[in-house]
């Protein structure tokens, strides 16, 4: 029987085999790429959902915190503050009625000072928890008060520039969050950055309002901090709650800058 199989036929078969192998490899590559993209998309979606959930939790937490602050501030001011005021007055009356010995006079003076000091502290704490200026006169006045408080320490100079009206800023909810953001930033500048100069600008720009915060402190590596800083997370959450876009910028030795567009 004659063998019809020529060497050229074998070569053709090898060529066809090679082609099939290339096709198979292509199929594997395409399938793996497609499947991996799908898998990654699923994981990204899941991670985004988890992030959104976490964000919602943080925001809920912040809201609860604000409500608690308001409640404690109101209780301190209206209840304890007023009772201390009454106590102060009653003590004055008692002091006037009696004929105190010098020792009682000195003790009375001490009690009087203590009550006055406690009353002052209660007022301060309740104002720290919820500045009445913010509620009554708005963000601009609250920022001016904050500037005065910070400058009272004598360690930092605060420059405050605003070219915006209260009505342009937004509702009290937005004002509160903007104030808290500035409060958090100034706290950081004072506590960690050892800044000597703080600049706060509240500007009306084309179509957008811009809150710009800068300090000349020691700065930090933002990338390293972003994973652990609760303060920074809170800033972002508060910004998100008022639909603002926050951009932070810092590097060791180069101060800190935050830009908030809302």
């Amino acid at each position, binding site marked *: 029987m004659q063998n019809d199989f020529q060497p050229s036929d*074998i070569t053709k078969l090898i060529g066809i085999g*090679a082609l099939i192998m*290339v096709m198979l490899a*292509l199929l594997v*590559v395409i399938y793996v790429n497609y499947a991996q993209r799908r*898998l990654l998309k699923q994981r990204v979606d899941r991670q985004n959902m988890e992030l959104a959930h976490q964000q919602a939790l943080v925001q809920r937490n912040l809201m609860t915190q604000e409500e608690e602050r308001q409640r404690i501030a109101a209780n301190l001011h209206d209840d304890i503050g007023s009772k201390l005021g009454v106590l102060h007055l009653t003590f004055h009356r008692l002091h006037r009625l009696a004929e105190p010995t010098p020792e009682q006079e000195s003790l009375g003076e001490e009690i009087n000072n203590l009550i006055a000091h406690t009353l002052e502290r209660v007022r301060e704490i309740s104002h720290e928890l919820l500045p009445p200026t913010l509620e009554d006169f708005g963000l601009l006045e609250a920022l001016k008060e904050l500037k005065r408080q910070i400058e009272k320490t004598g360690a930092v100079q605060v420059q405050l520039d605003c070219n915006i009206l209260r009505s342009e800023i937004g509702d009290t909810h937005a004002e509160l969050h903007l104030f808290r953001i500035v409060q958090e930033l100034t706290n950081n500048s004072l506590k960690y950055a050892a800044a000597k100069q703080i600049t706060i600008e509240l500007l009306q720009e084309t179509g957008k309002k811009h809150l710009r915060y800068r300090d000349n402190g020691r700065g930090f590596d933002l990338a390293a901090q972003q994973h652990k800083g609760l303060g920074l997370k809170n800033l972002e959450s508060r910004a998100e709650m008022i639909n603002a876009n926050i951009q932070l910028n810092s590097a060791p030795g180069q101060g800190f800058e935050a830009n908030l567009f809302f």
Partner: protein
Amino acid sequence: MWNKIIYELSRFEGLVFLFLIPCCIVGAIGWKQFPRALKLIVVFVWFDLCTEIILRVLAHAFKDNNPGLPFYAIGQMVLWSLFYREILPRRSVFVRYFKPITGVILLLIVLNSVFIQPLHTFCSYSITLVQIMIILYGIAFAFRFLEEANLDENLLEQQSFRYINSAVLLYYCGTLFVFMFGQFLTSDLTAQRDFYFLWRANILLNMILHIVILIILCKTIFSPRILQN
């Protein structure tokens, strides 16, 4: 000598240098920026370049470059095994039994060159064995991605390895039969005519591999901060 070099480069076979040489240059320039796995790829392209040159010199000088092939097979086996050991997960069989697997394959290549296909014949068994191993590595890496697309990993780096792996699969699958029947194709006079066509296909696939490597190396150099994270 220059005429010979120009002649070599002007032939279709010379096209292999078109992307191989830039790969070597880019690899040398960006060496410090590359992660370990990409450094192995750079070593591979340099090895590839040296082998190409040596095999051509052997072919010209002695009309026989077959003695160089076992060394080429050994080099390929070692470098690709090291590369896949870097990128495959620790629990992979190929990583856990890296030394025994590589050792056995290298031993088989040596034994084949000593007893079955001596140095002056085309060592198709050795090359086929190495190619099958590399294909297995490639498949293990490709399907590993389906199990663990980890978002915490450096995605750009993983993407680079995925592209290299795709090119590796394409090249070694496409040329498996060409090398498997290499002895027949080079010894049979009638088949030799068609062999050149297959050899050109091999060069084309080889060029694709080098193009992919070149792109990945360039990409790594121009986005070094992301890759080194």
